[in-house]
């Protein structure tokens, strides 16, 4: 990954706090998850599908003697499924542990709170519910994810399943988001 701007130049500003984020890729979009919520990264996993589960459930993986439910970020964002193994971030939220299925996990980046911007109002409703905001990097954006919002217990299946009509709408709405990335 290229040397994405980290914002050290803003260190002198008193209000700046630095956050370490684990960068995650989904297609070409860059996401970030605060590393303090990450228990472990499991690479090359093939989750066992669960028939009749809500669409956002990516399946089950065996993790340290327990069976872990995973959430597929692709399904959450209504992207087409990807063949082949994916990486799993094992996240801790107040409801317990769960796995987040992503295409690939990258390096840890340190970002400054000064580069943070909340979700823009033009973002579609579903994404507004999932994203916390974004960090402005030198040449790209990093969308910040919050494990609390992605916890399968809290995800609302009704909102995410969506009707056919909703899905068509999000299809058209994805344009700006993709450009933003």
């Amino acid at each position, binding site marked *: 990954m290229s040397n994405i701007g980290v914002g050290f130049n803003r260190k002198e500003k008193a209000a700046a706090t630095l956050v370490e984020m684990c960068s995650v890729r989904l297609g070409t979009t860059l996401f970030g998850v605060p590393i303090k919520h990450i228990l472990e990264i499991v690479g090359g996993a093939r989750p066992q599908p669960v028939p009749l589960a809500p669409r956002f459930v990516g399946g*089950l993986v065996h993790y340290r003697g327990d069976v872990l439910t995973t959430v597929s970020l692709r399904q959450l964002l209504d992207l087409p499924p990807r063949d082949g193994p994916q990486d799993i971030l094992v996240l801790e939220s107040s409801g*317990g542990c769960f796995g987040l299925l992503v295409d690939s996990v990258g390096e840890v980046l340190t970002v400054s709170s000064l580069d943070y911007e909340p979700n823009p109002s033009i973002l579609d409703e579903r994404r507004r519910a999932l994203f916390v905001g974004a960090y402005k990097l030198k040449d790209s954006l990093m969308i910040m994810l919050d494990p609390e919002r992605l916890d*399968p*217990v809290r995800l609302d299946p009704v909102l995410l399943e969506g009707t056919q009509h909703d899905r068509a709408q999000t299809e058209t709405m994805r344009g700006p988001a993709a450009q933003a990335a």
Partner: protein
Amino acid sequence: MALDELTREFLIESQEGLDRMERCLTELEERPEDAGLIGDIFRSVHTIKGTTGFLGFKRLEKLAHAGENLLGLLREGKVTADRPTTTGLLQLMDGLRSILKSIEVEGTEGDGEDTVLIECLEELQAPVHVHASAAAGLIQEQHPAMPETAHGPSPEHPSVEQVSPTAPVAAVAAAPKPGPDKGPEKASGDAEGEGAKARVQSTGTAAESTLRVDVTLLNRMMNLVGELVLTRNQVLQATANDPNLTLLSRRLDMVTADLRESVMKARMQPVSNIFSKMPRIVRDLSQSLGRKVRLQMEGQETELDKSLLEAIKDPLTHAVRNSLDHGIEPPDVRLAAGKDPEGTLRLRAVQEGSHVVIEVSDDGAGIAVERVRQKAIERGLITAEKAAYMVERELLQLVFLPGFSTAAAVTNVSGRGVGMDVVRTNVEKIGGKVEIDSRTGKGTTLRLRIPLTLAIIPALIVHSVKQSFALPQGALSELVHVPPEQAATAIEWMEGAPLYRLRGKFLPLVFLDRLLMPKGAHKGSTEKENFIAVLNADGRQFGLVVDGLADPEEIVVKPLSAVLKNIGLYSGATVLGNAELALILDPGSIALKAGVTMSSDEKTGRGADAETESEAAKSPEYLLVEVADRQAAVPLADVLRIEQVKISRIEYIGYRPVLNFEGQLLPVEDSGGVLAAAQADLEAPDASERQIIVVVCREGNRHVGIAVSHVLDVAAGGDLFEAGTKARAGGVTLLKNRVTGVVDLGGVPPLPVGESENSEWGQSTNGMVEAAR
């Protein structure tokens, strides 16, 4: 208020002390003179009192103190442990418990008032001569200081001489010499020292060899061991070809197995943990109901997983209450019936294979079957016509229906109609079963059959939608294979409802793939290998159609997250031996989801099933076979397996037909001429493809085969008697109301090698076959 470490420790310790006290108290009723028991109880209360003083729980201290006084007198023999005394002590225990509870929940002792209880305890302290109530009042006022007057009673309390000698013998000896009144703190410190010493003596060894462990830690350990087992499996596979690592991996294998067993064992607790609560319940109930009951307990050392033990506590208590309220009659009724006025309630725990059976039996009135019939009709649970046909055993099963109660009046003990169905539901929830057996006038026995552990269950691994699923074997009754070429005819459709004729009766089918993938394309889906798993879930019978079967496995149940639990089809997940994940199917929910309900016909059918099942417990079961148009019976206990073999595999030693099973020679009995018929025209093109059925049975030390045309059913046999002589008829039994001959396995002549009944049997006969050829 958050509890500090010390308080929590105190709570746990005090609870244990009270548990011990409870056990001792109920025993004390039997043996009021047992000094050891009184000593034990005294120490329990004393420890609580000592520690409370230290922690500053005044109310608790005061109450414990009052109890200690009484117990001290008991210990010295000044007061005898009669019934009112024990009752008082039990009340003391309840009082202490409720304060402890309040400390645990709220962090404070609560504002309850214990004066009545304390007064009561003080009145009990009166030895032989009755205490003046004035004195009692005085004592109460002086309470905190009272027992600590270890150096003798103060002269200004005239009653003290009878009351205070709680302190051991030395104090009594010193009694005539009035000493100064010690302050409570100091004295209680002294007393605590003494109590602590005594406790160390009695429990020292136990405390050194045991350790308190958090259950969540044990669960975590269990999980990690499961993980280790899987890793071991992978290591074993990876190192299989490396001779250097074989020894190491072998050792890893053994250590892992031992570790797993030890952790499992750590979760086990003896049933005495719940049995020990019963004497108190029986005592209190029998007093309030006016019954005289003797409680017998057996097999208290039998062990069960802790979580299961918790789960059966309520059902068991309920069963005991029921026995006392409805089972055992009042003493006068018992006397009139010519019984011992004292009834007997037996609690028995015994391990049977992978189950623990807990029996609650009483020698009471039994269940009046006619009343069950009436009540069931009255409450609209069954129709009058149906009831008229039901026999005793079917009627007994009705008590498990929700809303059933035969009690003439609702008492505060039981009889509200929420009884046996709750017992059954709770026990079935943990994979157990409930059976009931009752004889009018003789008593009732309730049997709870509980699996040893919840964490590990036997399951059949099935395949569907290209995935593996685990099916708990508890619900599985049989498996039927429908090969692709038979699928079209064997699986019948009634307006979209798939059915299979299982021994002539409709069995509703549920296709697992259609259930799991409702939108999936299932074109010509029956034109493949189909396996029907016949399941029984909550009394509903249905067939689950899957694509394939794998071996049964002992699976470790892992909980699912709430999102997946909400789907309602899966009860958990597990990791299979090949490291693959499998979801555990819940037969009850599948039945519900697929709309399998109990039709009214099935209800009666189920009753009939239950009847044959329970009949089976009494009379032997037979395999009903057809041999050349005649029906015959083979004792089921002797049947090892049923083989379908090609006729060409039957060979002959002389004229004796035999079957060669991997070097094991099986004589085949063919009195019905089934073989002869099958071999009639061997020249026909299909002759070698013809199949015959051989029932392989055990007869003494040997195995014999019986050639049959069809296997029809399994049924319980009934006895037949010769008219006039009433002598039991041999060789025949009553099967499905038909007189049926029983195949005489002993009559199958031994093979020529019969005289050498050693383990070489198979090999030596092999030689004979060669010779015969």
